[in-house]
C-alpha cells in the first residue's frame, strides 16, 4: 500500500494551483456576479492541457487518469468553484466516447477539444426526468440514414456555448425493461433545429453556462450513435461511476478553499484581546474541519484511483460523492460562521463559496440518489 502521490501527480496539482491562482483570483468575483462566461481562461486551460486529463494522448489529450482529473479540479475549485465548474464541463460526457465510441468517433471528436474550439456537453436532465433518468422522453426516431430528435432538456451545462452535445434520447419506447429504452447520440449544436436558452440566475457557480435546450426535428446521421442502441441507460450509469469521482473532487477543493479562508481569518481577526484562533473553541472547530476535508480527499482519491486501475467501484464512488459534497456544504457553513458578519458580504470569497456549495449535493446524482446506490450495493434488492 502506498499513499504517496507520484512526482507527476504532485507537479500536476501544482500546475493546476498556479494556473488557478494566477488566472482566477482577480476575475472570479466579478465573473460570478455578472455571470460572465470565462472564454479566455478556457482557451488557456486547453492549451496547457488542464482539461480532460483522462483523455488519452492518442486522441490529443493529456493522457492521465481520473485521479489527475479530480486533482486538477480540486485545485481549480479551491480558488473558484464557478470557473472550476466551467473547465470541468469542457470535456463533460466524453467518457461515453472513450468507453463506447468507435475508433473513428474518438479520432474525429476528441482532438478538437485541445486543438480547436470544441466544447462538450451531456444533455440528460429533462423537465420531468431528473433523478429518474429512465423517464427521459426526448425522442430519437430513425428516418433513412438519420435519427430525428425531438424534445427538450433543462439545466444542461454548455447548452449555449457547447459545440458538441451528447443527448440522452428515447429510441426504444416499446422495450419492456426501462433500462433498455434509451440511447446516447452525439450531435453538433449547429445542426438545424437545435435551440438553447441560457438559464440565468443560478445561486452559485454563476459564470458557468447552463441552458434549456429544445430539439425540433434535429437530424443526426445514425453513425453519431455512441455505443449500442437501447444501451443508453447502462452507458449512462457507467459514465456516472466515472464523473462522480471527479465531481467529488470539486467538493474537496471547495471544502479546502473554505477551510483555507477560515484558517486565514481566525489567525488575523482579533476579538476579546486575542486572535480567534487562540480560543480553544476555534481550535476545535478548525481541527474538525481539517479532519473532514482530509477524510473526504482520501475517499475521493481512492475512488478515482480505482477507476484508473480499471476497477470502478460504484459503491465507493457514490460514498465519495455523498460524503465529500456533504463536507463541502458543511465547511462553507462553518467557515462563514467563523467569518462572522464580514462573511455575509460579497467582497469576501466565502460568500461566493457558500452559494456555490449547495449544487454539489444536487447535480451529478443528488445525495439521496447516492444513498440509494450505496444502500442497494450493501443490501441488494430486498423484496
Amino acid at each position, binding site marked *: 500500500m502506498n499513499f504517496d502521490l507520484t*512526482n*507527476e501527480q*504532485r*507537479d*500536476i496539482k*501544482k*500546475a493546476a494551483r*498556479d*494556473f488557478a491562482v*494566477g488566472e482566477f483570483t482577480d476575475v472570479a468575483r466579478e465573473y460570478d456576479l455578472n455571470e460572465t462566461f470565462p472564454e479566455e481562461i478556457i482557451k*488557456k486551460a486547453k*492549451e*496547457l*492541457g*488542464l482539461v480532460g*486529463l483522462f483523455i488519452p*494522448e492518442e486522441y490529443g489529450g*493529456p*493522457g*492521465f487518469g481520473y485521479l489527475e482529473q479530480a486533482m486538477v479540479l480540486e485545485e481549480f475549485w479551491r480558488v473558484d468553484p464557478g470557473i472550476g465548474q466551467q473547465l470541468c464541463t469542457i470535456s463533460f460526457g466524453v467518457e461515453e466516447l472513450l468507453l463506447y465510441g468507435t475508433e473513428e468517433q474518438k479520432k474525429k471528436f476528441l482532438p478538437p477539444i485541445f486543438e480547436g474550439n470544441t466544447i462538450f456537453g451531456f444533455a440528460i436532465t429533462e423537465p420531468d426526468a431528473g433523478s429518474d433518468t429512465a423517464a427521459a422522453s426526448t425522442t430519437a426516431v430513425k428516418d433513412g440514414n438519420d435519427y430525428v430528435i425531438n424534445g427538450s432538456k433543462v439545466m444542461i451545462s454548455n447548452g449555449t456555448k457547447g459545440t458538441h452535445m451528447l443527448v440522452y434520447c428515447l429510441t426504444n419506447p416499446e422495450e419492456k425493461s426501462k433500462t433498455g429504452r434509451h440511447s446516447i447520440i452525439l450531435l453538433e449544436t449547429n445542426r438545424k433545429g437545435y435551440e438553447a436558452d441560457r438559464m440565468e440566475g443560478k445561486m452559485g457557480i454563476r459564470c458557468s453556462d447552463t441552458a434549456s435546450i429544445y430539439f425540433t426535428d434535429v437530424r443526426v446521421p445514425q453513425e453519431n450513435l455512441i455505443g449500442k442502441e437501447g444501451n443508453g441507460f447502462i452507458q449512462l450509469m457507467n459514465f456516472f461511476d466515472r464523473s462522480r469521482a471527479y465531481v467529488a473532487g470539486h467538493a474537496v477543493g471547495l471544502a479546502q478553499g473554505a477551510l483555507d479562508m477560515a484558517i486565514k481569518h481566525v*489567525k488575523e481577526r482579533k476579538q476579546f484581546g486575542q486572535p480567534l484562533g487562540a480560543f480553544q473553541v476555534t481550535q476545535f472547530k478548525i481541527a474538525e474541519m481539517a479532519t473532514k476535508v482530509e477524510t473526504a480527499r482520501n475517499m475521493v482519491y481512492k475512488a478515482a484511483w480505482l477507476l484508473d486501475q480499471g476497477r470502478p467501484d460504484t459503491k465507493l464512488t457514490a460514498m465519495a460523492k455523498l460524503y465529500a459534497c456533504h463536507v463541502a456544504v458543511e465547511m462553507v457553513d462553518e467557515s462563514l460562521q467563523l467569518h462572522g458578519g464580514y462573511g455575509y458580504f460579497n467582497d469576501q470569497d466565502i460568500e461566493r463559496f457558500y452559494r456555490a456549495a449547495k449544487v454539489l449535493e444536487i447535480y451529478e446524482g443528488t445525495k439521496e440518489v447516492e444513498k440509494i446506490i450505496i444502500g442497494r450495493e450493501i443490501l441488494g434488492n430486498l423484496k
Partner: protein
Amino acid sequence: MNIIVCVKRVPETSEAEITIDKSGKDIHTEDLVFDINEWDNYAVEEAVRIREKEGGTITVVTLGSQESQDTLRRALAMGADGAIHLNDPSFLGGDPYATAQALQAALKGKLFDLLLTGVQAGDDGYAQTGPILAELLNIPHATMVTKVDIDGKKARIHRELEGGLEEVCEIELPALLTIQTGINEPRYVSIMGIRKAKQKEIREVLIKDLGLSPEQVSAAGSLTELKELFLPPTCKVAEIFKGSPDDVSIKVIDILKEKGGL
C-alpha cells in the same frame, strides 16, 4: 545557443508568518510552501524564449536537498532539456562563495554561451552567487538584466539602475547574466510539459564527482558566517494624518517626494 540556468528551491515567505528556529540562524520551514525562486523562474523563461529564437539546449542546475528536484522538474516542464542536481548533504549550508565554488566545479569544461541566474534568491537575498560564479569561471557578467538580445557572439542587454534608469550594454559571450523579475511573463507549466519532463534526465552529482574536498564547500568553504537571524523589531513610528482627504493626500505626496518615492 547553449544555455545553463542556475535555480534554487526557496520557501514562499511573502504572505507567511516567519519565525526563527532554535539555532537562531534559520527560520522554521515546516509549514512553508516551497517553490522555484521567483527570479530564477524569470531566468528559466528567458532561456526558453532565447532558445525558441536561437535554437540550442537548456540545462538547469541546482544545489540543494533531495526536494530541490521539484524545482528542476518544474524547469524541465517549462522547456529545459536536462538538469544537474548537486545532491550531496556536504554541499549544504554554504555561503554564496562556497555555492559558487561547487557550481563552478560542476560547470567546468561545459560548453555554453549563456549562463543565467536570478538576481538574488528570495530566502537569503545575497545576490552574490551569480557574480562570484562568473568570476570563478572567468567569464564576463552583468547583473539586474531586464532585456536580452542575442547578436551572434555578443548579447545586447538592458540593466536596471537606481532611480528608474536603465543602461544598455554589449557583452561578449559566453557570459553570465543575473535576471531581474519582470523581464518577461513566465509561462505556466503545462500538463504536456510535465509529461515530457518525465523523459528528461536529472543527473545527480556528488562532491566526489567534482573533485572537491569537504573544506571547499558548505560552511567550511565559506568566506562569511551567518551569526544571527532576527525579525525586524516592531517600531512605533507610524504617523496618522488627520484632516480632509485633499489635505492628507498633499501631505502624503510631499513625504513620498521627499523620500524619493515619486
